[in-house]
């Protein structure tokens, strides 16, 4: 199939790649853009390892055609935060055991980020629901829930601090 130039806005950066019209977003990210943080775990959109945010909504990049997402804001795990400026969600998964092997983690963090952005005070049921499209084979999920709770407390602390004009305290 003939390749065409596609413009994507990924993690706030404009990127241009030459890809076939049937190129999957996951393959474009991993192979054309060098963003290997998003993972492939299945053949049939059942694992959630490949999830990315498209305009703030978690989507499976393994079943999305890259060319369809021009003019969208795409956020991958690399866009959540770097090693020196971790997002509270990343900090939560790192600190609380939410990432054992780490393979499912990018997808879980994307789902968590989307949840907390739209619902800063989720119940346990809402957390389970929001993460139900993702599979983790390592943790038994308990420490993933702890990671989510860490993230939401940290976010609360940050916004409280922002409101009162002081620096965010360390949660733990």
């Amino acid at each position: 199939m003939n390749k065409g130039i596609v413009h994507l806005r990924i993690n706030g950066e404009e990127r241009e790649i030459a890809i076939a019209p049937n190129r999957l977003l996951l393959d474009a990210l991993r192979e054309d853009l060098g963003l290997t943080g998003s993972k492939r775990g299945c053949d049939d959109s059942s694992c959630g390892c490949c999830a990315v945010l498209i305009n703030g909504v978690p989507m499976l990049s393994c079943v999305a055609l890259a060319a369809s997402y021009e003019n969208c804001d795409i956020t991958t795990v690399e866009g959540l935060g770097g090693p020196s400026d971790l997002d509270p969600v990343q900090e939560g998964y790192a600190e609380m055991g939410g990432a054992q092997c780490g393979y499912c983690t990018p997808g879980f963090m994307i789902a968590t980020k989307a949840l907390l952005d739209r619902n800063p005070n989720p119940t346990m049921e809402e957390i389970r629901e929001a993460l139900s499209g993702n599979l983790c084979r390592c943790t038994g999920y308990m420490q993933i829930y702890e990671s989510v709770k860490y993230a939401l407390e940290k976010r609360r602390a940050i916004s409280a601090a922002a409101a009162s004009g002081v620096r965010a305290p360390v949660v733990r």
Partner: protein
Amino acid sequence: MADRAQTNGFSIIGKPLAMADAVSKVTGIGKYADDLSVPGMLIGKILHSPYPHARIRSIDTSRAEALNGVKAVATGQDAPNPYGILPIGHDERVFAVDKARYIGDNVAAVAATTAEIAEQALDLLRVDYERLPAWFDPEESMKAESDWIHEERAHNIEKEYHHVFGDPDQGFAQADFVAEERYYAGEVNHAAMEPHSTLAIWEPHERLTVHSSTQVPFYLHRTIAEVCEMPMSQIRVIKPLIGSGFGGKSEIIPLEIAACVLAKKSRKPVKITYTREEVFLAHRGRPITIVYLKVGITRAGKIAAVQARVVQDGGAYCGYGPVTVLYSGALLGAIYDIANVRYDGFRVLTNKPACGAMRGHGTVNVRFAFESILDQLSHQAGLDPLEVRRRNLLKAPCITANSLRVTSYGLPECIEKVFERSNWKGKKGKLPYGKGIGVACSHYVSGAANPIVRSNMPHTTVYIKIDRDSAVTVYTGASEIGQGSDTMQIQIAAEVLGVCTERIKLVGADTELTPVDLGSYSSRVTFMAGNACLNAAKDMRDQLFAAVAKKLGCSPSDLVAKNDRVSHVSDPAKSVSFDEAVAIALEFHGALVGRGTYAPPEAARGGKFRGAGVGPSPAYSYSAQVAEVTVDPETGHLHVDKVVAAHDCGKALNPLTVEGQIEGSVYMGFGQALQEDMIWKDGRLMNPSLLEYRIPGTKENPDIESIIVESVDPEGPFGAKEAGEGSLAATIPAIANAVYDAVGVRINSVPITPEKILEALRAKEKALATSKPPPEKSSAPGMAR
């Protein structure tokens, strides 16, 4: 949630630390095998057999080879040397040479410039097959008179073992209650989230560098050398980040060798990554297991005798098979004080993907049977099943009937912990119909005391280097696969050297840079690599102390290392910073390298009978669990409300990761108990995907409460034992026993599906209608499929 251990006097040991590689994982910076690529890299694809058993008459590769972009095509003739993880089981070839033995067996492979071209090339390969009769059911396969899967394995029996300890016949004669049941466990797959991937790079000077998703880089190293006919010294195996294994990456997986063969043939870098379907076909999971079990107990609840006949459906190749069936026998009775045991184990070949080691290797399905029958017998005897377990405990230190040395035994405390936390007393026998509570126990090895390839070399070696930058670098062959073994070693080194963990760097599992460790399997790493690291750190500390003592004019035994300082125990004036200590020691010794090894002591290596080599371990972990369930008698729907799991890990070096391991084990046991099952039709796997082979997600998974029990093993590093596998096996029977408590039927077949529950409830109703009503909640006939 945490029932965290105390840190008693340690600075770093016992602290719930985040994993050392956590930041690289949460930022996407860390690289797994499939994330790697190099310039000029080819993509490899494998052709799999469409038939379960077929002779390969010929393969025509010419059209594939002619396709533009194809750089190499390989078939059995390119790499005919047989291999296998066990020295007694070299029955695999990277590509079938004479015949294909299961649907999915590897027949040929191509390497091409793109994945699309490689796929096209597969379509152009012409294989002339001659179909042969095939065997799918292990109990049928054992009766085969012809068309054996491997000609040299008569009647398709890979191995059989027959063990008798004590006097089982006399034991049964003394028993007041005897039960005999057939149990069935379906086949399950590790389903690690990362599909296998290997990048093999052909290097200058006829060298090969292999990055692979492996739990056993050292065995991979050996096998590549054997199959590719290259000296080991020309091959380098590097383990990148691993998206977990659970045993699925603990033997040599065909794509690993296929990538090497293609790289050697094309003289180019070649990457192969499995699809999820290929992961299921490569398999090596837990086999279908049929257990005929007879157990007798006395009126007082003491186990008098055990007799088991176990048949395992091994699939088409040996793999770890003999080890699996031996673990089933060795661990069957050794958790309790049982004098009389008879075990007959059969590992049978069938025309299906090879089974292998999976979390709780060999113990899980027999534990399900044993803990279920013990529950049944307890009720027959009118005893509380938890109390019956209390009455059959070992007294450590001791040697079990089958010659296993038990040095520490936290099972009593595990039982008491779950008794309290679950409110067993308040609930057992007191819940309404449809609600139930069940108990079960399990145990596991902390590594095998005998290596796969027998030798007197250490099982693991660690070096620690310090130089002028005062960084401490740990060189370890141990394979971090997500369980936290790197962090564990960093903690040990930091504790012994009295430095903060930030000062420690770790280089792991690279055959060119690190010494040998046998691999991440049989839960050996904390005990063995932990001890080697401890020894290396002590060796380093001795060198530092010798130099500093000379400088300070004291004895090395007067010194302590703590808070990044080396100081005199009682004279605070005599103290140097760690950096100063390093400078002093470099002037004194020239080079600073600490060396440590570990090999299990002779006393831990087990008995002398045939098959005695499997089961012995330097130490055993223990677990007790209570599951609470809700069963809807109208639909058969089973919900697991909660699992309380107490695990004796000796000493929790890092309670955060220990809890993660306990919870992950319970989770995996839950999956097997309720929903995971590989469905076969004439040798074809009907559910080779994560959509159809359903591992539990957040909606299904039960609430898990993990409790750490610390028996402090005399030989473990700081007393530590395994934490990653032992808890799995108790979950399944705890749930099965809770189902009985809820609705009065015993489901002797896993997974426990609504259909099976309904069928058992109907059978029970029928039995009640046609005979005098037995007492409340009594046992229906055991059912198995």
